[in-house]
């Protein structure tokens, strides 16, 4: 007993070290084979199933003006690629979409913050902001063309009307879900007023905000495509919506299919490359992402 005698402080220190070790679980990265099996293989299978079903359906319908074959559409891809117009179409839409989204971000963020924090503003325009989300922004194409003429500002107007409410609403719900405990803790640390907004409210609201951004992008892209299909003008440059309209006027179902697939593909790609990683990073760093 005498040889192992320790002071109470040393003793509790070593017990504490033991407790810490017992209660901390090591987290490692999942191996690639598992990621492949759980995350990559299922969507590839789904796409393969759709392609097979399509190829089987083609001879049944037997009418290329209604259902083109997969190889027809692929031929269209090669054709456009060789002409050098494929990337032009895609870039035309993506650049508009991203620029419009950034504008929406710059407007929606301060708007959301003001709605969330100022009671009067919230009561005044909060319901309208939520209501605007359910109004398809395509509805604005006609008045926007009349007001602004047939040019790119129509596209940006429609994107803004689609995305700003989503981004602002995402931030509002993010702020609403900030636990009051964080606000109290922040206040005792001296984070009040603008410092409180910057150091506590904004970071605490980040998960809701990022969800709003994700939805805002989906709305941007959708609105833009609708606007591109409806508002046609030679001096507006090329876009995927225009490609679809070209296909329709030329009665080329393969071109229409190509346009639809590209619209879908780009929408998913931007989400997968930008917004999903952003969302996962935010959630994982807070321990909110449950490993399956």
């Amino acid at each position, binding site marked *: 007993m005498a040889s192992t005698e320790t002071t109470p402080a040393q003793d509790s220190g070593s017990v504490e070290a033991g407790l810490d070790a017992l209660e901390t679980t090591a987290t490692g990265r999942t191996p690639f084979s598992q990621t492949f099996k759980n995350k990559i293989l299922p969507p590839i299978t789904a796409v393969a199933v759709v392609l097979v079903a399509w190829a089987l359906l083609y001879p049944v319908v037997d009418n290329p003006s209604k259902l083109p074959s997969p190889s027809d559409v692929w031929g269209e891809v090669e054709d456009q690629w060789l002409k050098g117009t494929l990337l032009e179409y895609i870039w035309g839409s993506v650049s508009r979409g991203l620029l419009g989204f950034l504008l929406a971000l710059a407007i929606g963020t301060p708007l959301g913050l003001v709605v969330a924090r100022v009671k009067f503003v919230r009561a005044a325009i909060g319901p309208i902001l939520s209501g605007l989300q359910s109004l398809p922004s395509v509805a604005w194409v006609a008045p926007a063309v009349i007001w602004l003429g047939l040019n790119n500002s129509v596209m940006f107007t429609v994107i803004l009307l689609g995305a700003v409410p989503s981004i602002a609403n995402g931030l509002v719900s993010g702020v609403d879900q900030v636990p009051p*405990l964080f606000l109290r803790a922040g206040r005792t640390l001296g984070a009040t007023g603008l410092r409180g907004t910057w150091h506590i409210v904004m970071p605490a609201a980040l998960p809701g905000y990022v969800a709003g951004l994700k939805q805002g992008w989906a709305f941007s892209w959708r609105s833009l495509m609708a606007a591109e299909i409806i508002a046609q003008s030679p001096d507006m440059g090329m876009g995927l919506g225009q490609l679809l309209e070209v296909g329709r006027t030329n009665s080329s179902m393969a071109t229409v299919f190509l346009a639809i697939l590209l619209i879908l593909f780009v929408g998913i790609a931007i989400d997968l490359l930008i917004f999903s990683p952003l969302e996962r990073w935010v959630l994982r760093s807070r321990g909110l992402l449950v490993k399956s």
Partner: protein
Amino acid sequence: MATTLAKAEESVEYAARLEHVSKSFAGPGGQQLVLDDISIDVAPGEFVTLLGASGCGKSTLLNLVAGLDKPTVGSIATDGRPSLMFQEHALFPWLTAGKNIELALKLRGVPKNERRDRTEELLELVRLKGAYGKRVHELSGGMRQRAALARALAQESNLLLMDEPFSALDAITRDVLHDELTRIWTETGVSVLFVTHNVREAVRLAQRVILLSSRPGRIAREWTVDIPQPRRIEDAPVAELSLEITDVLRGEIRRHGQH
């Protein structure tokens, strides 16, 4: 020289002084009195626990002292802005343990080049050396409360308010944290106002135990704890005094059942 000395003496007269503090809230059936005529002095470096059953307004009282709310009647003076530790750790999950502490230093106006070193010192004080880059969810319950304690200490206030900070922990971890809190209190010389409903915890930690009655919260009785530190919660004198206080506390609670 003489004037500065007098000033210094004046400022260390108390860490917190509550004079005839009452607090009522608007409730169903009019104003509800939560705290009634509370007067407490916490001396510099003193460790005081506030003990009471539910409904004694312990947390309301701490909010008042922390300046998060204002008393209806009476006055509260503290030596600088107190720091506050909650039942839940209240660490910000978007920051690492170290960054949580650095934020407290930053908000206090500590220059950037000193923050990292000071943070490491504080982490070492609560025996969390090497946890600087750990995310909050990677820490165990006891480690989180220690990080929260380090964050509260980062404010370098003269008064540390603690609102049942160990009540959500398991018994073994709690015992260890009692030892740690006693050690840190001795090392830093900070005054502590500690709220709990756990009698033994109160006796284990404090120099003075103040018992509050419930609905409304009034000071029912006060004990000075003369047992030398470091104490253990199992020590016979701790148990003996706890028994005495528990009997009084039970008597207070019993009154509410007699209607």
